[in-house]
């Protein structure tokens, strides 16, 4: 029975992939040649929107100001506006990350010395970033952008504590040996 469900999943997946690929190949056009696809310096597209400014979306400073006005309608409007801005930023960031990998794929597909391990590492890094974007969207939808910074700090502290605990455990294991 297990084998049948795997077979069913594989066949459905293949059908889906063929559909996506068919659409992609029909509309695909070769990118213009030339090495100008990838910038020489490591410039990231979103640098046009500096982090210092964007971080304001997630900052609670403005919220404190709005809350002091004691206007529920204004608070609702502010929260909705911040949420849509934050979601838009995540979407843009995600699109830029996709663009980086797309450019990489377009350049590396013809390299004879392409390294499988390097490609896998890059892909895992890319997958991690896309996952972070997914988590961000989910968190913004659930908690809103204003509480996200707090959540991120909490997660960061938690991971630091786990790391410390792991180090202590490793040290203890070493000592026991």
């Amino acid at each position: 029975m297990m084998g049948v469900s795997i077979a069913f999943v594989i066949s459905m997946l293949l059908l889906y992939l063929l559909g996506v690929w068919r659409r992609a190949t029909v509309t695909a056009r070769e990118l213009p040649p030339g090495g100008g696809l990838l910038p020489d310096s490591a410039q990231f597209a979103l640098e046009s929107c500096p982090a210092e400014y964007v971080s304001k979306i997630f900052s609670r400073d403005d919220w404190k100001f709005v809350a002091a006005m004691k206007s529920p309608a204004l608070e609702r409007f502010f929260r909705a506006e911040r949420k849509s801005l934050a979601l838009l930023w995540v979407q843009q960031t995600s699109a830029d990350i996709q663009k980086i990998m797309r450019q990489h794929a377009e350049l590396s597909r013809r390299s004879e010395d392409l390294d499988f391990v390097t490609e896998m590492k890059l892909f895992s890094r890319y997958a991690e970033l896309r996952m972070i974007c997914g988590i961000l969207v989910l968190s913004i939808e659930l908690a809103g952008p204003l509480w996200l910074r707090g959540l991120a700090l909490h997660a960061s502290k938690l991971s630091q504590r786990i790391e410390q605990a792991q180090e202590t455990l490793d040290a203890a294991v070493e000592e026991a040996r």
Partner: protein
Amino acid sequence: MLSQSIWWAGIVVEAVLLLRGVRGSWVSRYRYFYLYVVFVFLQSLLRFFIFRIDRQLYSSVYWTTEFLSLMIGCAVTFEIYRKGLAAYPGTARMARNILAILFVLAATKGFVDASNDPRWWPIATSTDLELALRIVQAGSIGALVVLFLIYKVPFGKNLRGIVLGYGLFLTLSVMQFAFMSVQGERYLAFWSYMQSFAYLLVLGIWAGHLWSYQREPEPEATVRLELEYQRVAAATRQRLRDARGYVGKVVGS
């Protein structure tokens, strides 16, 4: 009556497909694919006559030819890989590695199954064996399609038709054999119709895409990146690191 009509329609489309390929002389360009079509064409005729002459012999002829067509199908997969990625050595290298991993996984699973049950091979029915091999083939085609998508490998109409038709054929075969291995012979008639109809659909896709020859799109010869991979990879790594840093800085983690 319906199955006979579908069967004859299939034979006709196969003949037309072959005729077009031979007359246009693009048979040699997709050698294994046309070998597969010729084999299936002859196989259909052979099965038909055996079915008429000796029904007891039919089962063994059916499974023998089925296994042979499976082997030629593997050659078609290889041809897709070879033709599609001829101009993209980087993607071809990725494909080789991924196909090798898939093969090792399939072989390991086969070995584990065999060692868990010493009677595995003797009791394995032809359906189970065909299902296992079709799954490996479907996995290979799926992996290739993923690579074509990721690396945006452009395809000409002919090769695209071969991939789409063969991929669809594999999808339906895997489904059919999966259900047959559970349901046994209960819905044999239904699956027999399904298989014939699906194969006719696949032949239609092939005939449509291979009606005339279309040159595979060639990449620009002016770009020479063979020696630049490490530079490209390093730049991508740096850009992803920047992106990670940027997201962290904004969100405050």
